[in-house]
Structure formats: structure tokens, C-alpha cells
């Protein structure tokens, strides 16, 4: 019984860590631009597919991974420059549709550049399961958890300690004031998109050895990441991490203890329940809705 619980917990943590990385991407872009980027899942796809592509071309992982992350970041910059920046001041729904259009465009592009097949990356350090308190864990799960933790710490340092990070936070709080204080808001925006694309790509690469990658892998992960970001409180970094982990564990526990057919529905219901009591998520800012 308890071994079973540990198994569910470890699985939930791994899945949740991926959701958290995607959710962080949502939050960073939201903070910088008030845009919900529905193309966030496509960064996950680009990360995985580009790594597979480079690796197939004979590039070693150590180079293929940074190249893939850079490619995703470049796409993120392009998205900001050609789709989001020209639509400044448009309504929330309009921006949502622009980013959905972008995600359809990127998926279509991926089927042309690559293909519609599923692909797998070799696990970074083998396939031999690790036994932990009666539960088993793949080494790749440790990579997922470790890298996610490292990224969260690095982001905390970046936003809390560096000038650039503080500039980004300032922009998210008050764009005009930040501009007056001499922050180049356009650069901050571009950086936010690149950073969030890179995060998505890393999530896509980490998960590819476990759950594979394909041109449409981003649809579901994007949706789950959005749910995690909302659950935690949109715009809150800590919220995104907490939201991701909670969502991952809720799904696995429902699958394990209640009903595997309805596990996603149960997780969503739980999220709705949280929103009814805490309308800005678990760790969202309260009462600062702009009128």
C-alpha cells in the first residue's frame, strides 16, 4: 500500500515537474506582456523535435540540446516580433487567437520540416530502473526533477538578484513607470519570449525519452501547463511551480485511487473548486485586477 503511494507520488512529481516548466513559460510571458501565449506548447514540441533532428544528423546530445533550445528561443523572439508586438493594445481574446494561430502555423511548419511520426530520444543515463522505497523510477525522471529544480532556483536568482531580472519584474508591475525609469520595455518583452520558449524547449527535451515527441505533442502539454499556471496563480513564478506539481500529483492519485478514465476530469474539477474559493489561484496576486 505505501509502496504504491510512493510510486504514485514519484510519478506525479515527474509529470508535475514538466507541467511546472511549461507553466513557468506561461507566467513569464504573461508578466511581461499580459499575453496568454497559447503557442507555449509548440516550444515544447520544437525542443523535442529539433533535438531528435540534430541527433539524427549526427550531432552529439551535448551540442544538439543547446542548439534545439536556441532554435526554440529564436522562434519565441520571432513570435514576439512578428505576431505579438504588432498587435499591441488588442483585446485579450484577440491576442489569444493570434497565439492560437501561431501554434497552428508552427505545427503545420513542423509537419513540413520534419514529419508526422513519433520520435524518441535516448535516455540521458540509461534505462535501468532505480528502486526507491518499494517504488521504481527511471533515471530520466531524476533528470526531469533535477533540471526542473535547477531551473527554478536559477530563475529565482535571476528575478531576485540580477538587474535584468528586476527590470523584467518592474515592467510587469508597471510598464509606463518602468519605461520612465529607463528600462527598455521592448527588449524586456523580447527577452521574456525567448526565455519562456527556452523553458518550454527544455521541458520538451527532458520528456522526449519518456513520453516521446511528435509535431502535435505540444497541444496537450500546453493545455496542462496553462491549467497549472492558472491553478497556481497566473504571473506568479512560485505559483506556476506549485500549480504544476499539484496538478501532476492530483492526476496520478486520481488515476491510482479513483478512476483512470476520469483522472483528467477529476484534476480539472479540483482546479475549478480551488478557483471558486480562491479566484486568483493558489498563490496569485489578490485584488489587483485592473479596472
Amino acid at each position, binding site marked *: 500500500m505505501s509502496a504504491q503511494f510512493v510510486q504514485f507520488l514519484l510519478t506525479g512529481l515527474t509529470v508535475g515537474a514538466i507541467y511546472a516548466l511549461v507553466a513557468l513559460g506561461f507566467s513569464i510571458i504573461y508578466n511581461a506582456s499580459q499575453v496568454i501565449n497559447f503557442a507555449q506548447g509548440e516550444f515544447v514540441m520544437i525542443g523535442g523535435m529539433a533535438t531528435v533532428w540534430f541527433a539524427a544528423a549526427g550531432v552529439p546530445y551535448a551540442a544538439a540540446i543547446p542548439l534545439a533550445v536556441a532554435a526554440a528561443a529564436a522562434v519565441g523572439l520571432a513570435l514576439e516580433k512578428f505576431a505579438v508586438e504588432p498587435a499591441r493594445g488588442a483585446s485579450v481574446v484577440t491576442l489569444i487567437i493570434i497565439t492560437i*494561430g501561431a501554434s497552428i*502555423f508552427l505545427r503545420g511548419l513542423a509537419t513540413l520540416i520534419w514529419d508526422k511520426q513519433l520520435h524518441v530520444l535516448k535516455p540521458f543515463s540509461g534505462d535501468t530502473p532505480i528502486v526507491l522505497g518499494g517504488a521504481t523510477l527511471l533515471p530520466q525522471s531524476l533528470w526531469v526533477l533535477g533540471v526542473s529544480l535547477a531551473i527554478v532556483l536559477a530563475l529565482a536568482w535571476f528575478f531576485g538578484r540580477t538587474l535584468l531580472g528586476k527590470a523584467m519584474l518592474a515592467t510587469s508591475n508597471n510598464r509606463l513607470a518602468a519605461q520612465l525609469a529607463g528600462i527598455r520595455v521592448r527588449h524586456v518583452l523580447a527577452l521574456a519570449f525567448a526565455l519562456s520558449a527556452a523553458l518550454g524547449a527544455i521541458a520538451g527535451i527532458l520528456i522526449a525519452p519518456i513520453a516521446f515527441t511528435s509535431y502535435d505533442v505540444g497541444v496537450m502539454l500546453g493545455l496542462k501547463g496553462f*491549467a497549472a499556471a492558472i491553478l497556481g496563480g497566473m504571473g506568479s513564478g512560485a505559483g506556476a511551480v506549485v500549480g504544476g506539481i499539484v496538478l501532476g500529483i492530483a492526476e496520478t492519485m486520481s488515476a491510482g485511487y479513483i478512476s483512470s478514465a476520469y483522472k483528467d476530469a477529476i484534476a480539472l474539477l479540483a482546479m475549478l473548486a480551488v478557483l471558486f474559493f480562491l479566484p486568483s489561484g493558489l498563490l496569485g496576486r489578490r485584488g489587483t485586477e485592473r479596472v
Partner: protein
Amino acid sequence: MAARFATPRAGGMAALAALIALLPLGLRNDYFYDVAILVGLNAIVCVGLNLLVGYAGQISLGHAGFFGIGAYGSAILATRYGWPPLAAMLAATLAAAAIAFAVGRPILRLRGHYLAMATLALGVIVYMVISTEDRFTGGPDGMTVAPLAIGGWALRDPRLWYWVVGALLLAAVWFALNLIDSPTGRALRALHGSEVAAEVVGVDATRHKVMVFVVSAVYASIAGSLNAHFSGFITPAKVTFLHSIELVTMVVFGGMASTFGAVVGAAALTTLPQVLTPLKDYEMMVLGAVMMGTMIFMPRGVVPSLQALLTRRRDAAAAAAAPAPRPGDGQ
């Protein structure tokens, strides 16, 4: 009399009626009728959704759920339990309205992106139930639906369906236009402007929002029921998150807060995939690019943007001819 007719509402209604009456001249065979009917059904959903998104300013990424409740409610009652299709439709519509009313209050308290996520979750939950409970719904492979029969007479011919859907679309538009002009409509627009300000002057924000949410759910549900009976077959693909997105895209594409825009958006995005088929592998990219391009260059949607353009041109022409007072802008 002439002055009455010259209101944008009546003029628009007349234009739409004329279009529906004349369109069959260009419909060469049942395939064209098929597409025209789907345009009409989508337009009905969009006119309703536009009340919520365009006028009340409340986003919904879950309306495919209400479409699905209508479609499956009607399909299950009529096909599995042998109800008369019209009674099944009525029951499904009431169910959609009741669900919308029940969840409306807590959900519509949420704002912006939280509301988007909550409605999205609602739609996904409906999808999951439909796709899991295959004893009733046939699961992901879908189910056959009885034709729309009134008395002993079954409506099957697409050419008849066309007139039924056309008439319903006109009724849907007429009702929506009336709602917009009613005190509720004015309250809604006040909400869209500033919810706090509206509440200060005594508008019961939540009540109005819930009401328009229910109305839009009813529109979606009726269109869903009709779609199920028309197609004779229904699958959960019509209840997915992607279909919800498609519906919102139609509304925004045509023009938010423009009832005729909703119709134009539905027409454009329903026919687009049919037109794009020769592009094969490039279809997705082009569709994505069209969505992005339209929204970037016409952020208010096609109809309002073109209207603004026309007004400006006419003003410029009028100004060139003789200095005249600026006429009021069109609705």
C-alpha cells in the same frame, strides 16, 4: 416607416434575409447546400457566443461543451429512447440552460484568464464524460442519430434543411439584436466598459452576466441538436477544446460586438478549410497565418474594421465634395 426601416438593425436583417433567399442560386448541388447549412449552424452558435464575448466581454473557451450537450442530449433521447426529436431537442436545450445557470454564478465571478481556464475546463469535462460513457454516447467512435422527424415525416433533404436553418438563423439574429437593444443589452455594454462603474450605477453585474451566459448556451445547444439530426451521426470531435476555440475564433474573426460580424466569421471560417484543400500539406500553415494576419491587421475583426474603412472613405468623399457635418457612425 422609411425611417424605421433605415435603422441598421432592420437593414441588416433585410440584407441577411435577402442573402439567405438568393444564395441557393449559387448552390449547384447538395455538397454546396451541406456547407451552407454548416455555415448557418455555426453562425447560430456564434451569434449567441458573441452576446457573451462581444457584448458582455466575458470569454468562453468551453462553448463546444454546450454544443455537445445539445447534440448528444438530442441524439441519445431521440435515438436510444425513441423520443420525438423535437421533444428531445427541447429537453437537451433545457438541460444546457440549467447547467449554464448552475455553473454560471461561480464561474462568471472569475475574471479574464481565470474565466478562460474555468470555461475551458468545463468544456473538457463535458467532452470527457461524452467520450467515456460509451454505453450512451458510443464513445469516441460516435453514434448514429435519428433524423429530425415531425409527426411521421422525416426531414432529410439538404435543400429543405437549408431553409429551416436559414429561418432559424434569422430568428437567432433577430432575438440577439433585440436583446442588445433592451435594458439588459445596455447593462451588458456598460459591464464591458467597466464592471465597477456599472455596479456603482446599480447594475447587478452577475445577474446580467449569468443571463447572457445561459442565452449563449441555449444558442449553442440548439445548433448542436440540429447539427446532430442533420448529420445523422455525431462524434465527440465536435465537443473538443479545439472546437470551442474554433467558435471563439469565428466570433473574433468576424468582429466582436457585431452580430452580423459573427455571421460573417462563421461563414468565412467554415468555408475556408473547404477552399484550402488544394494546399494539402500547407493547409495548416495557411490557416494559422490567416488567423494571425487577420487579428494583427484587423484586431476588431473583419466587419467592424471594414465598416470603419467604409465610413472613413465616405466621410473623406463627403468632405471633399462639400464640408458637411459628420454622420453618425454605423452600428
